[in-house]
């Protein structure tokens, strides 16, 4: 039973994920197959126990999905009903876990959901068929000759009690070209007139696209009929009819909201300059102070807004991770290997885009770990390792980033082999390959066209290389690296932003360019007199408090220009002291401009491969600010 509960949860997570995709894209074949399999498996396991209501309900769900797989058109509503059944299973699993039995009302609840699934099919087929060319109601005579979409809205009798205002709803429909309001039933004896019992039928014609009309009526969709009107006059515009079935909030709208919030942040930062300018004016001090205090207020509100928008998009990793156990079992089975999969950190929440975008790259890495990482049983035995390989997929939050690692205890990657392969595939010349240190050599694995598999097989040899994984991580605004030791195993590490959250930046100038540094790593800024600098192991350093801190000339690192000289003797260096990789480092900069909150965007285009850059953001003046990744710069 314990096993069933664990497996049941996985299957529920899997089916839910696929169903959610299907609700958004009803024609997603892979998702359809996936959730069909999950539900089929669930039903099978149910048979092992005395869980009749669950079995019967799942059977009905399976039949509905089977019909859709067999060619019946599947609609978002169908999948929503199946999802309802899956949710019910989830609640029953709670009950089984808590009490060891299904709740007393399981039978009735299951039947109700079954009935809804059965009813869904035929009714929806009709409703979702192409719009009728002619409305199936008697159209107002006044509407003849109009073209567009005819709307017939019959509000529920008690709709006023529900807070609806049908006239306001209709008035909000875009591009209304005709309207009529009539009593649904005769008014009757006015002595008994009930002012709060809605007795209206509202008909209208709109020239707006179908999607916009549906959006206007989304809250009362069950009370509305729509039909196409074709103009009596040929050639009249029929109105752009785009059919859209779902009226859920479009992810694109949330994205748009996110972008607007980002831009608001940028716009708000412009107030700082304004405040400084105002303060500089003669007598402008008070105005400047007032501006600053307003700016601080706005700062907080915009920060809250930004965080709220970010949270809308947060989703736990759990459903993503929940898909891996079965996939790992299947893969290991196909390879004839025995592998234990451990998952950790699935409660961590990250941006939905990232959760969605991670599945393919993580799956690819996982398959690699099973295929190339974990050795065949004989070799493991020979190496004195346990027969079953161990693959751990872990997620942890690190500041505003999430670190996801896929670690195996397999053979690891031999840098020498990668060098040879790179030479053999013509990626590098022999000299260049030999000049690479082991870490850089291992990193070659991400170069397109390089795969360590010497045989192509069904599991991972699908023409997808680690270069695709790196590209996928980059698209998500993150990075992927690989480490490990020959014989001991491999770790693939994804470092991804957790949200599109605001990063506090310090803006500095170096060699005439402005750069951003993550403020949370900055400890202090200081002026260090040139004569306080010492040379330690051929590097510049200075005494800061009670320790010696290495000094890095930032303009050398970023510009590579000849202006890398230190300040003349007697002068002083502007130094930003920051934590980098667990130690204090001083960065000499030309000037410190200020600080700002910014939404980092991953780099694209020409800069996408540039090392040492964490991202970019838009400055209030419209210019692009490059944000440095100090740790990577130093590595």
């Amino acid at each position, binding site marked *: 039973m314990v096993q069933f509960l664990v497996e049941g949860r996985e299957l529920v997570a899997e089916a839910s994920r696929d169903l959610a995709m299907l609700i958004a894209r009803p024609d997603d074949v892979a998702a359809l197959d996936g959730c069909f399999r999950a539900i089929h498996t669930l039903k099978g396991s149910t048979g092992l126990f005395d869980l009749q209501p669950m079995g019967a309900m799942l059977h009905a769900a399976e039949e509905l999905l089977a019909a859709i797989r067999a060619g019946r058109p599947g609609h978002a509503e169908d999948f929503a009903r199946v999802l309802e059944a899956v949710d019910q299973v989830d609640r029953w699993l709670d009950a089984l876990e808590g009490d060891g039995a299904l709740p007393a009302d399981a039978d009735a609840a299951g039947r109700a959901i079954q009935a809804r699934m059965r009813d869904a099919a035929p009714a929806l087929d009709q409703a979702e068929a192409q719009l009728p060319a002619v409305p199936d109601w008697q159209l*107002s005579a006044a509407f003849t000759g109009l073209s567009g979409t005819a709307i017939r809205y019959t509000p529920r009798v008690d709709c006023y009690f529900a807070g609806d*205002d049908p*006239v306001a709803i209709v008035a909000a429909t875009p591009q209304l070209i*005709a309207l009529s309001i*009539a*009593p649904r039933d005769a008014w009757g004896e*006015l002595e008994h*007139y009930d002012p709060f019992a809605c007795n*209206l039928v509202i008909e209208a014609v709109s020239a707006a696209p179908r999607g916009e009309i549906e959006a206007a009526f989304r809250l009362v969709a069950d009370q509305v009929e729509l039909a196409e009107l074709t103009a009596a006059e040929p050639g009249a515009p029929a109105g752009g009819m785009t059919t859209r079935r779902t009226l859920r909030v479009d992810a694109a709208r949330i994205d748009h909201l996110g972008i607007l919030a980002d831009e608001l942040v940028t716009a708000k930062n412009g107030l700082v300059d304004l405040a400084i300018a105002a303060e500089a004016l003669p007598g402008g001090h008070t105005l400047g102070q007032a501006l600053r205090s307003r700016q601080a207020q706005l700062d907080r509100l915009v920060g809250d807004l930004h965080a709220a928008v970010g949270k809308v998009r947060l989703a736990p990793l759990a459903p993503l991770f929940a898909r891996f156990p079965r996939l790992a079992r299947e893969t290991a089975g196909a390879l004839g290997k025995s592998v234990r999969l451990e998952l950790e950190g699935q409660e961590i929440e990250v941006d939905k885009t990232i959760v969605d975008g991670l599945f393919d790259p993580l799956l690819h890495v996982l398959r690699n770990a099973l295929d190339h990482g974990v050795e065949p049983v004989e070799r493991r035995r020979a190496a004195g390792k346990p027969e079953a390989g161990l693959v751990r997929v872990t997620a942890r939050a690190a500041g505003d980033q999430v670190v996801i690692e896929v670690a195996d205890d397999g053979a690891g990657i031999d840098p020498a082999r990668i060098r040879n392969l790179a030479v053999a595939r013509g990626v590098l010349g022999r000299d260049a390959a030999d000049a690479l240190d082991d870490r850089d050599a291992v990193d070659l694995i991400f170069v397109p066209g390089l795969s360590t598999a010497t045989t192509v097989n069904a599991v991972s040899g699908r023409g997808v290389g680690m270069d695709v994984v790196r590209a996928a991580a980059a698209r998500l605004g993150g990075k992927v690296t690989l480490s490990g030791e020959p014989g001991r195993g491999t770790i693939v590490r994804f470092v991804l932003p957790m949200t599109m959250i605001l990063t506090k930046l310090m803006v500095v100038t170096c060699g005439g360019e402005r750069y951003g540094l993550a403020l949370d790593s900055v400890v202090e800024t200081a002026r260090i007199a040139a004569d306080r600098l010492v040379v330690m192991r051929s590097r510049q350093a200075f005494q800061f408090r009670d320790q010696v801190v290495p000094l890095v000339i930032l303009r050398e690192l970023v510009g590579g220009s000849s202006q890398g000289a230190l300040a003349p003797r007697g002068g002083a260096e502007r130094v930003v002291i920051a934590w980098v990789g667990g130690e204090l480092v001083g960065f000499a900069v030309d000037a410190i401009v200020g600080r700002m909150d910014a939404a980092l965007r991953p780099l694209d285009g020409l800069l996408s491969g540039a090392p040492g850059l964490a991202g970019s953001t838009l400055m209030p003046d419209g210019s692009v600010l490059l944000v440095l990744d100090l740790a990577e710069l130093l590595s």
Partner: protein
Amino acid sequence: MTVTRDGATIRLQGRCRVEDAEPLASLLHATPGLTVDLGDCEGLHAAVVQALLAFAPKVVGTPSDPVLRDLILPLLAGERQRGQRPI
């Protein structure tokens, strides 16, 4: 107060909400022949529109709100017997 009686005229002023439907219906029922003035009206809840359709008083005044003026008023004023006029 959005429903007020002024002699033989009922004035609907501001935004008329759902609860205004009852006093309006009550007035129209009690005294047939009253005129309803929408000149200062900024919005009509469906329940109020419904009461105006049911009791069919003479409607005067031109509200400034475009939705009211262009979409709703034609249904209430003049030849409204079928309440169906293209706009």
